[in-house]
């Protein structure tokens, strides 16, 4: 931490200043608006994720916080100081780059020591902290290797150690696991989570893998086209997406067009286009919306057994199974729903047979699992390309 930072006075006495605070930050490249006015606060020690499709502005946001880009407009606050014009080497923020960006000409130890050397720490302190850092990421003893002699996963760890060893206020990670293969990625997720808990540094984590984001974050923000669509805890964002885009981006979702018909006795009734009606919690309704889309997550849908009676108060739709895909953990059913809608249902392979292709099924779910969003707005990645 550079001197002036240490001297930084905690201005808002009482509540500690958030580690990161973005106020209406914008960044324009020539024509494209990479970041289009976002507000964000990240508390100390939080594991915060930025989630979004490719090109939505995640890396740019990180670059603005890291200081590699100057915002076109707005303010970047780090620990209670406005820093949007401060060069990277004067910010106590460190980055783990997607490509790792390890110095190929330096061995692992020197890579990790780089930041400390710049800050003129005594030799002894440096070497001890470096070995601690390597210890932490489980690379003790590999200090003499060159980056090229390491596997992807190991390089990833070095990048992490190189950043962490500086005990930054905030650690920025840009798709740190993007380059690793699935199995390894899952391992590193746990690893990262563990390390974050141990050192208690604030993590700002960029990814476009929603499962990763859900699994790791305390809170996450879903970005789209340079804007933040929703901020919240994983459960909140997943179960109660604020927009069709979010609903859609966070895993498969079943969206049915409809219109709000009545709100009475703590229950909102929504008539589906085509046929049937769905019940939902009134407080889920986007205020003042007449036409809406009702959604429910695939795992919330339960195929009723042939003889089974419909649970009272539950939503039920009819359908025929079109395909049933075995996924190990469960089956994914594609179902032709009412009015040419297509529903996705997830059934855990807990034992009893999942209905096979061609079977007629009744799907039921609880009203509280229904979410309601305004129609339109969402943009799928594919179209972005």
């Amino acid at each position, binding site marked *: 931490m*550079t001197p002036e930072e240490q001297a930084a006075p905690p201005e808002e006495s009482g509540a500690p200043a958030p580690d990161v605070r973005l106020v209406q930050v914008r960044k324009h490249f020539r024509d494209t608006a990479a970041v289009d006015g976002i507000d964000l606060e990240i508390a100390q020690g939080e594991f915060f994720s930025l989630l979004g499709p490719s090109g939505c502005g995640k890396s740019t946001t990180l670059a603005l916080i*890291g*200081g*590699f880009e100057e915002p076109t407009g707005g303010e970047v606050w780090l620990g209670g100081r406005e820093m949007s014009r401060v*060069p*990277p*080497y*004067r910010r106590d*923020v*460190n*980055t783990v*780059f997607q*490509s790792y*960006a*390890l*110095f*190929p*000409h330096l061995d692992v130890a020197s890579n990790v020591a*780089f*930041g400390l050397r*710049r*800050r003129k720490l005594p030799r002894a302190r440096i070497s001890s902290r470096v070995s601690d850092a390597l210890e932490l990421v489980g690379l003790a003893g590999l200090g003499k290797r060159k980056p090229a002699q390491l596997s992807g996963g190991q390089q990833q760890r070095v990048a992490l150690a*190189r*950043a962490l060893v*500086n005990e930054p206020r905030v650690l920025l990670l840009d798709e740190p696991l993007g380059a690793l293969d699935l199995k390894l990625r899952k391992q590193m997720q746990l690893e990262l989570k563990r390390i974050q808990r141990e050192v208690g540094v604030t993590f700002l984590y960029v990814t476009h893998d929603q499962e990763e984001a859900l699994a790791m974050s305390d809170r996450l923000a879903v970005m789209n086209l340079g804007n933040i669509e929703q901020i919240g805890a994983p459960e909140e964002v997943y179960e109660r997406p604020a927009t069709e885009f979010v609903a859609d981006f966070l895993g498969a979702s079943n969206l049915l067009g409809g219109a709000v018909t009545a709100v009475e006795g703590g229950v909102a009734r929504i008539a589906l286009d085509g046929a049937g009606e769905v019940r939902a919690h009134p407080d889920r309704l986007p205020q003042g919306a007449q036409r809406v889309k009702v959604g429910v997550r695939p795992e919330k849908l339960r195929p009723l057994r042939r003889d089974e009676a419909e649970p009272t108060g539950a939503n039920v739709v009819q359908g025929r199974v079109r395909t049933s895909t075995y996924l190990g953990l469960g089956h994914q059913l594609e179902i032709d729903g009412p009015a040419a809608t297509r529903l996705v249902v997830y059934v855990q392979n807990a034992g009893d047979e999942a209905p096979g292709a061609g079977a007629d099924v009744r799907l039921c779910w609880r009203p509280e699992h229904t979410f309601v969003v305004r129609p339109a707005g969402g943009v799928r990645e594919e179209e972005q390309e």
Partner: protein
Amino acid sequence: MSVALRSRLAPYLLGMPAGAYLAIFFIVPLFAVLSISLETGNYDTGFVLTWHWHEYVTAIREYHTQFIRSFEYAALSTVLALVLAYPISYWIAFHGGRHKSTYLLLLLLPFFVSFLIRTLAWQFILSDQGIVLGTLKNWHLLPQSLRVLSTPSAVIAGLTYNALPFMALPLYVGLERIDRRLVQAAGDLYARPATSFLRVIVPLSAPGIFAGFLLVFVTNVGDYVNATILGGPDTTMIGNIIQTEYLTNFDYPMAAALSSLLIGGTLIVIFLYARTFGASQIQEYA
């Protein structure tokens, strides 16, 4: 032909013609030099291979000054060229933007002029009563007797000038290859621009530096045109000697001995360089 067999033979078949050619017209001649350097006799009576090393002894005794001078000049001009060219190559590579190739072309313009003409032009420019000195002298800003031509500095300047493109190009290539994100990373790790330049960019451009060093030093150590056109009596380089011994005095053994010594010396210098700055660069280059 089976896959495996083909892939085993292919390189040899492909490499054969060039390999043979280089063997006959490059390697063998090098040995021809060696053998001639061990002959004795004179142009009149012809030469015979006597395995006498005395030519080497004489060569060193007579011409060690020129040898040392050549290496001095070559080293100096190489360093100068490096210092001159590095900032440019750096700037073009990192800040050239969309016009990189244009800047590069401008820098390489001398390539398109016969280097004899370039050197002659310098002789014109630098001559005592010439555009530069002459004018200054007429304004009495310089003493009448002052001269640049036929001094060591003139020769070194000439060598440096001719070396510039050969230095700038490989440097540019080397710098261009550097991953910008590494510079970002350095900045992220509290390195001021100057520091990241010294700690990251320069080390990573080592292969480019080596390539430049190789081309320039080697070209200059054997050069005699600059010394002839821009130099004076005390700037004679080993190239001049070899050329005279070969083409004027027909003292082939002596000339051959000098050549052998020269290439030997050059290889040693390269080897030392590689030793001190890491041999990997040679691989990366050649």
